[in-house]
């Protein structure tokens, strides 16, 4: 094997002695390290470390791994995480996915909250027969991909809710809060023009009227929009009761501008960044009164596992978990459970075991949909399973307002929001 000498010769010629040394070590590492007898169970995490939800994925996985290892591991074997930053690039993600599979021989890969990255990785999961659990991205296409060619793509699990279910959750919450409590009647859908919001908007269009809100208009804007004034001015003239959002790429700017311009319309829907505990500071408090769907909320015991998790997370990292931390933490436990039931880390038995998952996680009861659903291998949505929560920012804190049985606060809106006159009861 000639590689070491060859690379070394070139680098030193290149005169970059410092980097040559690094290279040499690096390549030597690559070239010699053989597939080690996998005593620990390796799990790959692909994520975007410079973002809040991306970092939360890594944190959630780390916390789960620590707890599982401390409790004796999986059938006595320790979990070892391989965390790779894909820098929000699908190219980097594909290359690190391959590295984790081929070099580290990870049992499964978990991660990404970016649909684009998830979609790029899915074909590789199928091609390399590598179980892959997506824990933050929401596009419908992610699980539809499995449905389209189950035999090939069965290795992929969408361990989060597809956009269509997220829309349903928003409608359900809107019905209970906005319509029943505040007598709202009209809504405008305001989504960033992105592929994940297409099924979301379609879902909104379908379920909002059933929930009691007439959709007056659907506005889609470019995700690189920075100035939302024209949109809010236009909305003000339509004068609906509520804005139902579909935001993930944007968040801070429309929220801040909604607040600074005193847009007299309530803001609800999915405002993904508002799910983060840092959102209050990022918006300088502009998020006061904003409602968003989220998987869980601080201090709310959706299941007996929710609070212990968020407390441990807060203790370990010093801040509260973003939604993707819950999903990733749960995904790790689903993997542990499946490996133990399958008594194997091989792909096919593991997939079969994952399909039979039925456990209680931090978000609710976890079960994957079957082949017959168009969202094959997505989490089951509905009361008793995963529904998510609706939270509202109140005085710098995220309060849960829905589901009603879990609520720790009543919804209230900033003074500049014009509410419909309460009908005399």
């Amino acid at each position, binding site marked *: 094997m000639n590689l070491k000498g060859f690379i070394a010769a070139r680098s030193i010629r290149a005169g970059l002695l410092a980097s040559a040394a690094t290279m040499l070590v690096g390549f030597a590492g690559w070239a010699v390290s053989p597939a080690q007898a996998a005593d620990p169970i390796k799990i790959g995490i692909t994520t975007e470390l410079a*973002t809040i939800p991306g970092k939360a994925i890594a944190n959630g996985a780390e916390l789960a791994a620590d707890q599982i290892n401390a409790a004796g591991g999986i059938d006595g074997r320790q979990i070892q995480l391989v965390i790779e930053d894909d820098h929000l690039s699908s190219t980097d993600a594909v290359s690190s996915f391959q590295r984790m599979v081929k070099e580290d021989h990870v049992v499964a890969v978990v991660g990404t909250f970016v649909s684009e990255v998830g979609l790029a990785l899915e074909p590789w999961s199928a091609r390399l027969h590598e179980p892959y659990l997506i824990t933050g991205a929401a596009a419908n296409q992610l699980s539809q991909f499995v449905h389209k060619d189950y035999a090939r793509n069965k290795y992929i699990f969408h361990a989060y809710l597809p956009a269509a279910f997220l829309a349903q959750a928003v409608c359900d919450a809107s019905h209970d809060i906005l319509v029943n409590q505040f007598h709202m009647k009209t809504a405008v859908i305001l989504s960033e023009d992105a592929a994940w919001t297409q099924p979301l908007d379609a879902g909104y269009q379908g379920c909002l009227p059933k929930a009691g809100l007439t959709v007056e208009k659907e506005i889609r804007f470019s995700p690189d929009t920075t100035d939302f004034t024209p949109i809010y001015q236009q909305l003000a003239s339509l004068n609906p009761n509520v804005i139902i959002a579909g935001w993930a790429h944007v968040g801070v700017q429309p929220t801040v501008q909604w607040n600074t311009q005193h847009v007299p319309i309530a803001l609800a829907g999915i405002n993904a*960044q508002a799910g983060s505990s840092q959102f209050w500071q990022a*918006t300088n408090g502009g998020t006061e009164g904003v409602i968003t769907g989220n998987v869980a909320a601080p201090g709310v015991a959706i299941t007996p596992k929710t609070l212990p998790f968020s407390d441990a997370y807060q203790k370990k990292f010093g801040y509260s978990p973003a939604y993707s931390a819950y999903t990733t933490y749960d995904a790790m436990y689903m993997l542990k459970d499946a490996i133990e039931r399958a008594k194997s880390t091989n792909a096919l038995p593991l997939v079969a075991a994952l399909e039979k998952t039925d456990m209680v996680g931090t978000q609710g009861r976890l079960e994957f949909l079957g082949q017959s659903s168009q969202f094959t291998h997505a989490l089951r949505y509905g009361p008793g399973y995963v529904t998510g929560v609706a939270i509202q920012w109140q005085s710098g804190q995220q309060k849960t307002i829905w589901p009603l049985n879990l609520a720790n606060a009543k919804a209230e809106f900033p003074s500049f929001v014009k509410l419909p006159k309460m009908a005399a009861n």
Partner: protein
Amino acid sequence: MLVLQILIDGFAISTLYALGALGFTLIFGVSGVLNLAHGGLLVVSAMIAYYVGTRLGLGAYIGAGAGILAGIVTAMATYLLIVRPIQRSRVIPARERELFVLTGTLLWGVMLQEMLSYIFTDTPITVKPLLPGIVDFLGVTTPANEFITAAISWVVLGCLWLLVNRTKMGKQLLAASINPRGLTLLGFELSRIYLLVWIIYGVLAGIAGILLGSFLGTSSEFIPALTGSAFSIVVLGGLGSVSGTLFAAYVIGYIETLTAYLVSPSLRNVPALVLLILVLYIRPQGLLGRR
């Protein structure tokens, strides 16, 4: 009503564009440098202002001061670490220096972006506005911060005008942009003048970054787009022409606002890009450029 809304909103956004691009055009006019790390300067200032003002809780004004300081420091670093070494390099042939300054500042912009995303993550933040609340102006509700932003921008523009036209130092800057050799012959050290321009650039970028950050938010991911938009405005107005830059900023600002109001918010950027291509075809020296 709609007309007034478009006028007000377009004015605010255009003024911000103008301020953001001003330093870029100034540094090109005086020292011939196209700084492709421009967006980095704006975002560094905004991030520091946010960190000091909001995270450390020292308030909007102290935050803004820290942000401007950060702008100056970053501008100096750009000049002293990147631009000047390339300009003075013996190994880089003279006629390729421009390309190397472009490549060097481009890499510097990447470095700033990576450092910021490492320290502050990519998540967008907003700088604490100097003045909260809203104003009802002839029936159009507008955030007070928008007026403050426009007012500060115009005060800064006015100060710059006074500096250039009414002070000894300004005369030197003007002379350097017209004829650097002539200035050398009169016994002025160009190196000192360039240093000075970079400091002024830092102040301008700092203020622009903070105002942008309080109005539209900021994130390390915005750096390339901010550089791009400053570049477009400056080329559209005519490279190195301050009045051209102001004019182009208003053209782009209003075209975007009109599109957003009258056509569709999601097509907001398209007409401006098309206009840019058309202008470059028909009048490559820009709207108000000489040459």
